[in-house]
């Protein structure tokens, strides 16, 4: 029986299994079918997620224009990148967009989940309503909100017709506010997911906790905020990571809603990269920008690795 391949980390869900959890290695039977069956995975992992990324990085050091070449020019593309206002504004926009989207999504999502948790009637109906936008494409989201934000025929004019003639709500026409319009559209699409994950987290909290809090006479809101919330680290982390990856990739909604404008007020790094490899035919510059987009991901992975290494070291000492 020991000859059979041993699924070492069966108990540890996901990829977060620590080395300490791993069982001692058993000698595995070499299975050619397993390798054949996973050929597409080998090709994707090595061919796409390793080799393609290496090529992106290599081309970022060249002066490639329409087609890639290997005329290395050192760090010039990066120097140019960080001197380009369009890029710097993209990064700033992404930061503002990310912080706002994440912050509001987490708070609003948790609030919705808490209110959904009050033994309300029609819970399924409410859940469907909060979550349906997520089923729709971000292009659809962008186009609908663009229409509702229309300065002459959208929400602004509808409210003015009701009598509030000074009412202003057309964020997309002004450089200072366009980004907030984008945030609102994105939130409409994604808050339901945060709510669903948080609600699952809330339901997963031991009911004994609630009984204990009740016996101690702690008010409900305090229990939610100071006792239950810290207990749902898993759900929070999940919602957070999901939103984070969505934020870095933000592209569709920008194209559909603002095309980066007015001016460059809603320009984003992902849009910058695509524009440079298509319309602007400057592959070297686009690849430098793409490589920069990889940096936050690498930092996150390094942090996680360090944390795990540290935890293992502590576990080793204990």
């Amino acid at each position: 029986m020991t000859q059979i391949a041993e699924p070492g980390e069966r108990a540890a869900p996901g990829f977060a299994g620590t080395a300490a959890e791993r069982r001692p290695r058993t000698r595995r039977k070499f299975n050619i079918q397993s390798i054949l069956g996973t050929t597409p995975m080998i090709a994707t992992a090595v061919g796409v997620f390793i080799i393609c990324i290496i090529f992106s990085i290599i081309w970022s050091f060249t002066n490639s224009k329409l087609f890639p070449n290997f005329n290395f020019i050192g760090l010039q593309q990066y120097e140019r990148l960080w001197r380009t206002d369009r890029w710097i504004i993209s990064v700033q926009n992404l930061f503002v967009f990310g912080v706002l989207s994440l912050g509001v999504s987490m708070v609003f999502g948790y609030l919705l989940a808490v209110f959904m948790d009050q033994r309300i009637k029609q819970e399924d109906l409410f859940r469907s309503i909060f979550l349906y936008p997520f089923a729709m494409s971000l292009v659809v989201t962008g186009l609908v909100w663009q229409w509702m934000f229309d300065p002459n025929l959208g929400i602004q004019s509808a409210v003015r017709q009701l009598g509030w003639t000074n009412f202003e709500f057309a964020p997309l026409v002004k450089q200072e506010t366009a980004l907030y319009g984008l945030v609102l559209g994105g939130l409409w699409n994604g808050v339901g997911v945060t709510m669903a994950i948080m609600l699952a987290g809330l339901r997963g909290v031991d009911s004994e906790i609630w009984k204990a809090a009740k016996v101690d006479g702690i008010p409900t809101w305090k229990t939610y905020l100071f006792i239950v919330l810290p207990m749902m680290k898993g759900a929070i982390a999940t919602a957070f990571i999901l939103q984070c990856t969505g934020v870095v990739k933000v592209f569709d909604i920008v194209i559909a809603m603002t095309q980066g404008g007015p001016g460059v007020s809603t320009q984003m790094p992902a849009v910058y990269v695509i524009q440079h490899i298509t319309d602007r035919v400057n592959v070297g510059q686009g690849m430098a920008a793409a490589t920069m987009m990889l940096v936050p991901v690498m930092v996150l992975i390094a942090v996680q690795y360090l944390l795990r290494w540290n935890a293992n070291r502590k576990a080793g000492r204990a």
Partner: protein
Amino acid sequence: MTTEAISSGLSAGALSGPRGPKPKSLTIGRIGVYAFLILSALFFLMPLWVMIVTSLKTMPEIREGHLFNWPALLTFDPWLKAWDTACTGRDCNGLKPGFWNSVKITALSVPVSIVIAMINGYALSFWKYKGSEFLFGVLVFGAFVPYQVVIYPLIIGLSKVGLFATLPGIVIVHTIFGMPILTLLYRNFFASLPIELFKAGRVDGAGFWGIFFRIMLPMSVPITIVAIILQVTGIWNDFLFGTVFAGRENMPMTVQLNNIVTTTTGIREYNVNMAATILTAAVPLVVYFISGKWFVRGIAAGAVKG
């Protein structure tokens, strides 16, 4: 149980005595809860309402404003136009070519990506080989990599083998980018199955494929439903890969929708635009409303364990 609910129970008891199944009265707390939920629901429903009423109005009525009003003069022409004759540049074939392209792309990409991920997950759970964990790690890393970092080399690679801007090309791209999350989904599912199932298969002399087809495949129906929902909505809603990899011949519906709406020639017909938008959103919405709780489970499965 919350204090609002408790106090509502108490006050109801004080007023009418503990009769009836569940004594309930509207305390301020309960009203607050429902007010918050209903206001939020209105926020989420508003765009859908606006989309529907706008798509049923005539252009003169739209120019009068009144964004939220039900159309005075009901018309279905915008829907016909959006489907059949709306223009993108010089082509005036409406959304229908995009719809059929999306059907083709989705119908091919979903089964291919799922079968591959299923085998990956199975191999990673029961048939690890030297380096398989490393490959899985790379794949998980791939789930977090912004697409922009790999897109250009992928364009070059696919052009080299003549698959850039073709139907097989876009199917391959969807398979590649769906693989991390789907493989994770299946690996976690197979890893949660009792090992005895696998051992019993081994004792009976079944090999890699035997155990896969006779034991694992029949057991993975529920997780496959989740995977199908994830992939159908994900691929149908894709915009970036459609723009870059599909080419003019296979342009998916989302790309065509965006072209129709942002086309600058002629006057903007908002009713046609909104009808086109609803038509594009229709397929994933139908999937969502049919699948109900499976959809939520899909999000949770794709994310919680990640």
